[in-house]
């Protein structure tokens, strides 16, 4: 079997925000890849830079943010160096995005039908009204929405959260993109709807052979869907590997701590979940050493001084930790071995 090709290759991505308190380094030297027909998950807590990375790739960063370095190759083109005009053509047609809160992601002033028609028209200006309607209805039906004609004449506020997310996914897939970026698409939904949406994404991935970049803080959700997972903390990629490697042989102390913090049925209810000591990171003043050092249970003197580089652990598994570097003695600047 052939090695799956890389669809999106992000290397050395650096993003900073200008704030009244000073410059905030939101993403530092992040590397991650999305392969054709695979789901890559980006895991991390709030402020870890997971969403910012995705926004940077699509050029949707806020006004006070800037990309300071790196590349994001998609189909042989570096998205980070493209003109806004070029990028706009890619958005929605080659790379689409769905968001955390599907209800607010739909404009309350438009019906579902006119919203979908507008999306189609912005990429295919010559499309006829009837054709746009037909394709919208077809896409809604494919998203498991019963009676699409009726839904198309309704306003977003009369639809449930789950329905709205299905509509958003339909809008994202209308122009058959190759990559779907999903920014916590199930966080605002309740658990049963969450499950339905995940099944839908799984089904889309298999049927349309689409790649998905799935951003979440929920390891349970990531486990359902992802082929590969990339764990971020403080704007740095801590560890990346196949879902199996992350779940069963996590190498980085941060990932290990996250895995221990997942509630498990076999644990007794009385036993508290383990938590980390230390202070959360101040994004304005990043430490000289490892960003996780202040919370790391295995922190050494070296960790406070020198920032660890990504280390190849074999089989496309990398982690940035001095403990592992000492063991391997084979540091890597970039994750070339993943190619």
């Amino acid at each position: 079997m052939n090695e799956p090709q890389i669809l999106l290759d992000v290397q050395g991505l650096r993003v900073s925000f200008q704030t009244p308190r000073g410059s905030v380094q939101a993403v530092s030297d992040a590397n991650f890849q999305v392969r054709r027909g695979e789901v890559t998950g980006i895991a991390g807590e709030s402020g870890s830079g997971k969403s910012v990375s995705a926004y940077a790739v699509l050029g949707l960063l806020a006004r006070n943010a800037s990309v300071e370095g790196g590349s994001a190759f998609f189909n042989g083109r570096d998205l980070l160096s493209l003109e806004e005009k070029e990028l706009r053509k890619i958005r929605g047609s080659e790379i689409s995005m769905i968001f955390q809160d599907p209800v607010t992601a739909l404009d309350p002033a438009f019906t579902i039908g006119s919203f979908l028609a507008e999306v189609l028209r912005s990429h295919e200006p010559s499309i006829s009204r009837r054709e746009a309607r037909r394709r919208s209805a077809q896409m809604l039906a494919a998203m498991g929405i019963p009676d699409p004609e009726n839904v198309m004449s309704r306003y977003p506020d009369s639809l449930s959260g789950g329905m709205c997310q299905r509509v958003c996914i339909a809008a994202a897939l209308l122009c058959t993109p190759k990559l779907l970026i999903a920014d916590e698409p199930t966080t605002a939904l309740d658990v049963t709807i969450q499950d339905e949406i995940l099944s839908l994404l799984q089904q889309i991935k298999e049927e349309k052979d689409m790649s998905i970049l799935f951003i979440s803080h929920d390891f349970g959700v990531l486990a359902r869907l992802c082929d590969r997972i990339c764990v971020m903390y403080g704007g740095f990629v801590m560890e990346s590997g196949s879902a199996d490697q992350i779940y069963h042989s996590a190498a980085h102390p941060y990932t290990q701590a996250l895995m221990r913090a997942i509630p498990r049925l076999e644990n007794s209810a009385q036993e508290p979940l383990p938590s980390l000591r230390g202070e959360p990171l101040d994004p304005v003043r990043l430490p000289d050493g490892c960003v996780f050092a202040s919370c790391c249970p295995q922190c050494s003197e070296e960790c406070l001084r020198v920032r660890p580089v990504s280390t190849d652990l074999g089989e496309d598994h990398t982690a940035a930790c001095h403990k592992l570097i000492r063991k391997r003695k084979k540091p890597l600047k970039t994750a070339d071995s993943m190619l």
Partner: protein
Amino acid sequence: MKRKSRAFFHNPAAVTALLLLLGIILFCILYPFFTSVDYREINFSERLQLPSPKHPLGTDEMGRDMMVRMAWGGRVTLSVAFLSGFIAAAAGTGIGVLCGYAGGRIDSVIMRGMDAIASIPGLLLAIVFDYLLGMGRGNFLFGVAIAGIPPFVRLIRGAVLEISGSAYVEASRALGATPLHVVRKHVIHNVLPMAAIQATTSVADALTTCTILGYIGVGINAPTPEWGALFDNGKYLLRTLPHLSVIPAVMIVVCIICLYLLGNGIRDSLSIGGGEV
């Protein structure tokens, strides 16, 4: 939109206000065509009459028919009020959208300009424009319009800022929408209802300013009647012939109340879309 207009027409106060306002406007436009009496016609033999079939609202101290003078006055007052209100609405919405969407230096410069305008009393601005552009020909309406712009700009700018930072604009951009598309579709569609509500307020404000000016004798030259001027004219006979001053006063108040009820009606019918239906 269908659902929202239905909600509006189920609001008795708003519908009554709308019908009353339309009735008054139609009366002012049409009545002079149905009567042979001229509003300038002086007839001292019929001065200060009580309402009668010939003069449904009586006559003033020069024997002029009050009914036709009310209609003519309404034409003047209402056209000045609506015209200046709409100028304020159009300019205010345009500038507000520009400020909110462009942001940065353009925004700060324009907003400081708006602060400067807002610091001048509207009445004063109207009198100045009346003087500058030729007195007594209704030119003060530009002053009234300009005074009405700053509150509009502030409201619309705030709304645009909220909309352009909203999740649906972000989602739309993520699906390839151009900035023009965002303004044309999302911003304008969500701002227009708000602008409509504010427009009713600015028309009401303009009406107030116009009648105050008429009352103090600025803006429109006699013998052209104006509701404020008619009220002023009648006030000397308040004890003996109160209808001469009460009728214009009541018309002014009714129109202002109707405009506010209309605005409330629009707002209420729109807030339905906010969540539960």
